[in-house]
């Protein structure tokens, strides 16, 4: 069934993990690949540049990795939570509508039913959509291995396309962020060739605390304009708590354009990506006024 130029990878061992402990046991020697929804891993499988190691560790039945809950002022989302579950979650729709808003623009229903939040992070695509609002929310990633459990901020998690701070024996088990306060403002924007199943040519998330037309503690994150999600820290500092005047917007757009690093590729040109990034930021800063 596969075209001639495609070759399935060599997998020597298959483990269907029933618990987190079983999964991290199977990953402990660094020779395993965790499989969840499969939308990235299986799509890359036969391409010759897939990332399957010799042991396939299916974590899709590990119930400890499921669920969305609020505990002690923090929202915790299990790594196996699908994009559909984020879209449909009553808790998130009430307290963090930014995440369902992103989920509504994510791929198409069949992919949303499969793709997991942990997978979107672990796959480390520069165009990963779910990552942007999570960075905007100040998310920490919980990583477990036989050695330790550690939390890393998602904003510094990515090193390059497909490359993260995770080591080969670690498993993303959950993400956590503080429940946003009532004046939290968050928007997600995305541009692509069609409304569904598009891989972002440019995506942006802008968050902050909005009071009297001023955005304080802003987070400005772009996708698909660099090798990793790009946090525009200088632009954030420039707009933090300021009255959003026309002059401030003009300066912020120019500064942002120096922080992103778009490339020309088959999806869009560097010029187009820069113009779209400016358009998104201008519109969303105006909307804050």
């Amino acid at each position, binding site marked *: 069934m596969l075209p001639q130029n495609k070759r399935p990878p060599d997998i020597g*061992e298959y483990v269907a993990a029933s618990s987190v402990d079983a999964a991290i046991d199977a990953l402990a020697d660094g020779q395993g690949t965790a499989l969840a929804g*499969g*939308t990235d891993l299986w799509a890359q499988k036969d391409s010759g540049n897939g990332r399957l190691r010799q042991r396939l560790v*299916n974590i899709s039945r590990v119930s400890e990795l499921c669920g969305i809950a609020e505990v002690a002022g923090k929202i915790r989302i299990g790594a196996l939570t699908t994009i559909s579950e984020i879209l449909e979650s009553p808790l998130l729709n009430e307290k963090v509508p930014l995440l369902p808003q992103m989920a509504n623009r994510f791929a*198409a*229903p069949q992919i949303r*039913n*499969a793709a997991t939040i942990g997978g979107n992070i672990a796959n480390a695509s520069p165009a990963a959509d779910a990552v942007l609002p999570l960075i905007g929310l100040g998310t920490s990633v919980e990583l477990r291995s036989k050695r330790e459990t550690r939390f890393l901020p998602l904003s510094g998690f990515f090193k390059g396309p497909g490359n993260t701070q995770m080591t080969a024996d670690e498993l993303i088990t959950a993400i956590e962020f503080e429940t946003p306060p009532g004046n939290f403002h968050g928007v997600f924007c995305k541009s692509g060739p069609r409304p*569904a*199943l598009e891989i972002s040519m440019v995506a942006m998330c802008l968050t902050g605390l909005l009071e009297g037309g001023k955005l304080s503690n802003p987070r400005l994150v772009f996708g698909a304009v660099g090798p990793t999600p790009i946090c525009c820290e200088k632009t954030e500092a420039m707009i933090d708590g300021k009255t959003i005047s026309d002059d401030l917007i003009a300066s912020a757009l120019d500064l942002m354009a120096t922080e992103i690093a778009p490339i020309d590729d088959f999806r869009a040109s560097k010029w187009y990506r820069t113009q779209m990034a400016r358009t998104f930021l201008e519109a969303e800063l105006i909307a804050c006024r």
Partner: protein
Amino acid sequence: MSLTQKIIFTLNGKPVQADAQVTASALELLRGAFELGGTKLACGEGECGACTIIVDGRSRNSCLLPAVDLDGREVLTVEGLWSEDGIDPVQQAFIDEGAIQCGFCTPGMIMQTKYLLSKNPRMTPEEIERGLEGNVCRCTGYKKIISAVAAASAVAAE
């Protein structure tokens, strides 16, 4: 010889078992070992929806679903829509509305429609269009497909 794994699952209401290749997709297993050709391979990368099946109540692209992951699950393919009463009302609606051109996308469209109706039996035209975003018709016969889903939705809402 590639690695295989024994799996047991429910396929169209019946318990079945198979020795699934660890690198195979659910699509390959269904079309191969089970000879269920209704589920179609088109893009093979989750872009077109022709391989849509329902797994544990959720529609999935079977081309991106590892066959071994079917273990223990409940799987519905287009072949499972047939009952002693005849074809499914969604299938009848596609026939009545003439929503089939070459027919290659039709099983995936019908399975996605079954899924959408299970979540929401009374869909608005916009909900139908959004719900079918992951299904491509290469003949571009979308208007009649959307009419068929609307007709099936009207039946389901009764």
